[in-house]
């Protein structure tokens, strides 16, 4: 077999330009990221997810420009039906529903991103350390992680949130992260354990590399798909949990978010007045945002489990 090199000159040029002794870290890291993105995009389901997520992110970022009114402006008529001025009507407090929906995207996207990121950071840190521990400390971490996995997260969040009383978005992110890191930690730990026993890790020891370099250059890059996957998983859970907590009235009820919209809708008896859009629109947005993240995860799965890829009919 004589494989053809795609572009020896190009890669070589990059190598030469970097005069330092340290070789090729940027290229391989970039390549991993690029390959991950390309793999996600190559799965049709994930492509739909990326498009959907892109839509919500744009909505979130440009909410003040897109929204027709200030979302907390309550100077309009109360519980109005659809009209040219208010495409989705107004709330019982006299706010424009469409503007609230658009601004709600900011809250959800922000919570999902921040809580997902923090959970993932904790998960990676604990997962990697834990994967390297074989003594009693490892057993203790095992026990703690399993405890956090089996304890029902939402009741725990509710109890903590109740103690912290109307803490707003920061509090919600805090409780979501506290309860949301365990799953990722567990997945990453088993992957760490399997990777550290591979020959190429032993070979890095023989090449004189230190523990930090081995973790960050040999093990971590091989877990990219899992880390990305657990980020999207944690973000999905965070978005749903945030909505749930706010729906129960545990957040700051003056925050403009899809969860608080549902809270007010239920409390102002939108069900009885027949203003179904107040229920339907925020919930649909939450679902679509969560779906977009799950769909992207189909592409991430494709990175690590080729058998899950589409096709190959039996």
């Amino acid at each position, binding site marked *: 077999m004589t494989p053809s090199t795609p572009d020896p000159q190009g890669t070589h040029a990059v190598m030469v330009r970097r005069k330092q002794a340290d070789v090729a870290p940027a290229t391989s890291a970039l390549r991993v990221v690029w390959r991950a993105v390309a793999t996600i995009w190559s799965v049709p*389901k994930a492509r739909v997810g990326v498009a959907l997520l892109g839509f919500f992110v744009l909505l979130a970022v440009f909410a003040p420009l897109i929204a027709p009114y200030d979302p907390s402006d309550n100077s309009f008529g109360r519980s109005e039906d659809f009209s040219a001025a208010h495409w989705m009507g107004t709330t019982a407090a006299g706010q424009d529903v469409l503007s609230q929906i658009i601004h709600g995207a900011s809250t959800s996207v922000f919570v999902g991103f921040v809580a997902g990121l923090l959970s993932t950071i904790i998960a990676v840190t604990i997962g990697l350390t834990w994967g390297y521990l074989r003594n009693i400390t490892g057993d203790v971490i095992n*026990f703690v992680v*399993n*405890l956090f*996995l*089996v*304890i*029902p*997260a*939402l*009741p*725990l969040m*509710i*109890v*903590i949130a*109740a*103690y*912290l*009383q109307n803490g707003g978005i920061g509090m919600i992110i805090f409780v979501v992260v506290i309860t949301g890191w365990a*799953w990722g930690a567990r997945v990453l730990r088993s992957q760490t354990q399997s990777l550290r026993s591979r020959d190429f890790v032993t070979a890095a020891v023989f090449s004189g590399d230190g523990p930090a370099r081995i973790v960050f250059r040999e093990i971590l890059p091989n877990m990219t798909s899992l880390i990305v996957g657990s980020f999207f998983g944690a973000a*999905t859970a965070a978005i*749903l949990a945030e*909505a*749930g907590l706010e*729906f*129960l*009235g*545990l957040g700051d009820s003056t925050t403009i978010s899809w969860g608080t919209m*549902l809270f007010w*809708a*239920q409390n102002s008896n939108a*069900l*009885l007045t*027949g203003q*179904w859009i107040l*229920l*339907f629109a925020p*919930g649909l947005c*939450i*679902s*679509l945002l*969560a*779906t977009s993240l*799950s*769909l992207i995860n*189909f592409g991430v*799965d494709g990175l690590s*489990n080729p*058998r*899950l890829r589409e*096709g*190959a*009919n*039996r």
Partner: protein
Amino acid sequence: MRFLLTKVGLLVLTLWAAITLNFLLPRLMPGSPADAAIAKLAQNGPVSNATRASIEAQLGVPTGSMFDQYLQYLGNVAQFDFGVSYTFFPQSVAGLVGAALPWTLVLVGLVTIVAFIAGTLLGVLAAWKRGTWLDTLPTVGGTFASAFPYFWTALLLLFFLGYVLGWFPTSGAYGRGATPEFTGAFLLDALYHSLLPATTILITSLGGWILGMRSTMINTLGDDYVTFAEANGLRPRTVAIRYAARNAILPNLTSFGLALGGVVGGSLLVERVFNYPGVGYLLYTAVVNQDFPLMQGLFLIITISVLMANFIVDILYGILDPRTRR
């Protein structure tokens, strides 16, 4: 036998950790919830010393050493003494929880088992008929439905089937004026009231089970023992069920145990939407009224229930997998 002993030991340890977490929670929080609780309770009438001590043990007041408080708390828990609710003063937390628990256990427990079994079967079918509509429909539907927040599905069903069409009752676990008793009429009424909440939990949790089973089943279908079974001309049904699905269900049981907490959490919100008198609705009431003793007691009971369910799943795993028996 060793397997069973290990599992029982782990259960005891986990229970202890959960109880301790419940003890620590209020003490880790800023402010003194116990003072707030006693102040609130005092509005209902004079607070006896016994009640005060009990609340302090439950919620933590900086009197006595932490260790003494812990011992007293453990003693109280052992006697199912979770203090007194002040929302429903002077009823005990234990009594309130005891009344609410059966509703949740039956509703959430039964529906979850049904959803898991149905989801597993659909997942097996989807993997076996890969690429056909039997695969695509449940996979796409499942992905979408499992992204629905539980309470939103509940609200939609309530609105359309309850209010707009009027097919189902919109609130409660049984008709107004009925008293819980074991008669056919009452049970039928209760079943009727449980249909919407049950459907909600089913719709929202089914997708996850389908997707999980499908993916593990696809993995086992590629395993050598499946190929060998086909080479030996076994009946397709035997290959699908006794060889592929029988092995695929094992990892899924583990994730079933771990996902239980999420389902229970979601169901609590569903109870809130339907005003269903289970622990979820009670927890909501406790939170709204800042009834800390009730909240703590409920959290503990919910956690213990999930831990017990997990224990049962673990034992079931041991029975199904000969490798753990050695």
